C-alpha cells in the first residue's frame, strides 16, 4: 500500500496523466485536424500546469513562461498547422501502418517501459513527484511511437511538438526553478521546428500532392 501523495504531487500527476492520455488520443485520432486540436489541448494543459506550479511554489517567472507557451503552443502553432492543412486540402485522414488496437497496445508497452525505467532510477525526494516524471518519460516515448507509426508529415510534426510538451512537463515538475532563459530556449527550439516542419509540409505537398510519407521510399523523384 502506497502513501497518499501530497496535493501538489497529486495535481502534477493528474496533469501529467492528462498529457499522456492526449498523447494516446493523438496516436489514434483518424483526422489530422483533430490531431492538431488535441495538441492544442495538450499544450493548454501543460500551460495550466505551469500556472499551478508558479502559484504553489511562488515562482513568478513561470507565469511569463505559461503565458508564452499558451500563446505559442495553444494559439500560434496549431493555427499555423491548421492553415497549412487547409491549403493542402488533401489527405484529411492520416495514414497509419497498423490498426488502432495494435498501435495502442504497442504504445502501452513502450510507455510501460518508460514507467519501469524511471521507477528503477530510484530518484526519490519529497519535493519531486516521481510519478509525474515517469509519466513525462512515457509521453516522450509515446510521441516517438506516434512519429514512427503514423506515415504522414503532419503526424510527425505533431509528434515532435508534443514530445516537447512531455519534456516541458518533466522540466516543470523536476526543476520548476529552471532559469527562464532555458525554458524560453526550449520554446525557441519549438519555433524553429515549426518553421522547418512547415517548410517540409509545403515542399512535400508541392512535390507529391499528398502528405503521406509513403511516397518517400524512392531515391529519385
Amino acid at each position, binding site marked *: 500500500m*502506497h502513501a497518499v501523495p501530497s496535493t501538489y504531487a497529486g495535481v502534477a500527476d493528474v496533469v501529467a496523466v492528462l498529457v*499522456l492520455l492526449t498523447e494516446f488520443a493523438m496516436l489514434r485520432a483518424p483526422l489530422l485536424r483533430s490531431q492538431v486540436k488535441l495538441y492544442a489541448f495538450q499544450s493548454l494543459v501543460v500551460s495550466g500546469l505551469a500556472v499551478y506550479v508558479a502559484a504553489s511554489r511562488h515562482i513568478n517567472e513561470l507565469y511569463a513562461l505559461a503565458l508564452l507557451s499558451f500563446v505559442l503552443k495553444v494559439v500560434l502553432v496549431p493555427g499555423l498547422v491548421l492553415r497549412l492543412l487547409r491549403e493542402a486540402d488533401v489527405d484529411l485522414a492520416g495514414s497509419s501502418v497498423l490498426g488502432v488496437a495494435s498501435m495502442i497496445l504497442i504504445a502501452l508497452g513502450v510507455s510501460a517501459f518508460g*514507467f519501469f525505467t524511471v521507477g528503477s532510477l530510484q530518484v526519490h525526494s519529497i519535493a519531486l513527484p516521481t510519478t509525474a516524471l515517469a509519466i513525462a518519460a512515457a509521453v516522450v516515448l509515446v510521441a516517438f511511437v506516434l512519429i514512427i507509426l503514423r506515415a504522414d508529415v503532419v503526424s510527425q510534426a505533431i509528434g515532435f511538438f508534443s514530445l516537447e510538451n512531455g519534456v516541458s512537463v518533466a522540466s516543470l515538475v523536476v526543476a520548476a526553478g529552471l532559469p527562464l532563459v532555458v525554458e524560453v530556449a526550449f520554446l525557441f527550439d519549438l519555433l524553429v521546428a515549426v518553421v522547418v516542419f512547415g517548410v517540409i509540409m509545403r515542399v512535400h505537398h508541392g512535390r507529391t500532392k499528398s502528405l503521406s510519407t509513403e511516397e518517400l521510399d524512392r531515391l529519385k523523384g
Partner: protein
Amino acid sequence: MPLGPSVVAPQGVQALQDLTVLFGAPLVSGVISHVEGRLQGRRGPRILQPYYDLAKLFRKETVATEESSWVFLAGPVVAFGCYLIVPLLIPVLTTYGLPLGYMGDILGGGFILALAGFSVALAGTESGAPYAQLGGSRAMTFGALIEPTILFVVFAVALITSTDLPYALAATVRSSSSEMVRPGHVLAAIAFFLVVLVDTGRIPVETHSGTLEFGMIDEARTLEHSGAPLALLKWGAAMKQLILYTILINVFVAPWGLAASGSPGAVALAIPALLGKAMALGMIFAVIDNLFAKLRLFKITEFIAAAFLIAVLAVLVFYAGGG
C-alpha cells in the same frame, strides 16, 4: 427490554439491500428512459412504465420454440438468481461489511455477473433462432474482450487497498479527499465507467432501445423469449444496470450517504440516497446516449482498447510511485 428495535439486524439490512436492488432497479430504468425521451424532445414514457411492463409480461403466456429444451426456460431464472446474489457482496446500503459481504470480493461478484450473462446467452443460443444466437455469440465475444479491463481495474483497487474487497476501497475513498484525486484512482474509476457503458449496452457500443438486429449485442439474446421468462430477463437487465451503477457510485466515485450503523433511520435514508445517486448517474448515461453515435461493430474493439489503456495506466501510475 427496549420497546422497538434500535438497530436493524445485519441480516435484515442484507435482505434490505437485495430488496432495494430488486424493486428499485425498474424505477431507475424508468427515470433514465423518461429523461432520455425529454432530451430527444419527446414526452418520454412514464417513470413507472417498467413496472407496468413487467406486470404485463408476467400475465402473458410463455412460448418456447420447438427446438429448445429446458435450458431455454432455466437461463433467465439462473440469471435472475445471480443478480440477487451480487447485491449481498457489494456496499449497497452500509459502510460496514455485512455477514455475507465477505463471501466474495470484486472478482467474485464479477464471476457471478459473468455467470448470469453466460446463462442468458446460453438460453438465447438454445432457442435455435439466428438473431438470438448472434446476440449470444457477440455478447460472449465482447464480454471476453472487456474482461482484461475489469481485471486491471481490480488490480488498481488491490494496489490502493491491499485487498480487493469493495468495502475496503469505499472506506479508503471516504477517508480523505486527496484519495479521490489520486490519478490512479481517477483512471480506475474512468475505466470502470467505460466498463459499465459496455456492460449495460449503452450508446457507443449498442443502442439499447432499437429494433435493428444487426447492431444488437445484449438485446438480441432475449428476442425469442416471451411471458414470464422475458419479464425475468428485463427485470434482470435493470438489476444488472443498478448493480453496476452501485459499484461505480458506492465503491469508486461517491461512497457517501451510506448507513454507518444499523439504526433504522440511517438505513432508511440510505435507500433513497442510493436510488437518487443512481438516477443522477443514469442521467449522465442518458446525456451520453444523446451526444454520441453508435460505433460500428468492428470499431467497438477500439473503444474497448481505450478502456483497457486507461485501466493499465491506472496500475502503471500506482507502480510508478503512489499515484
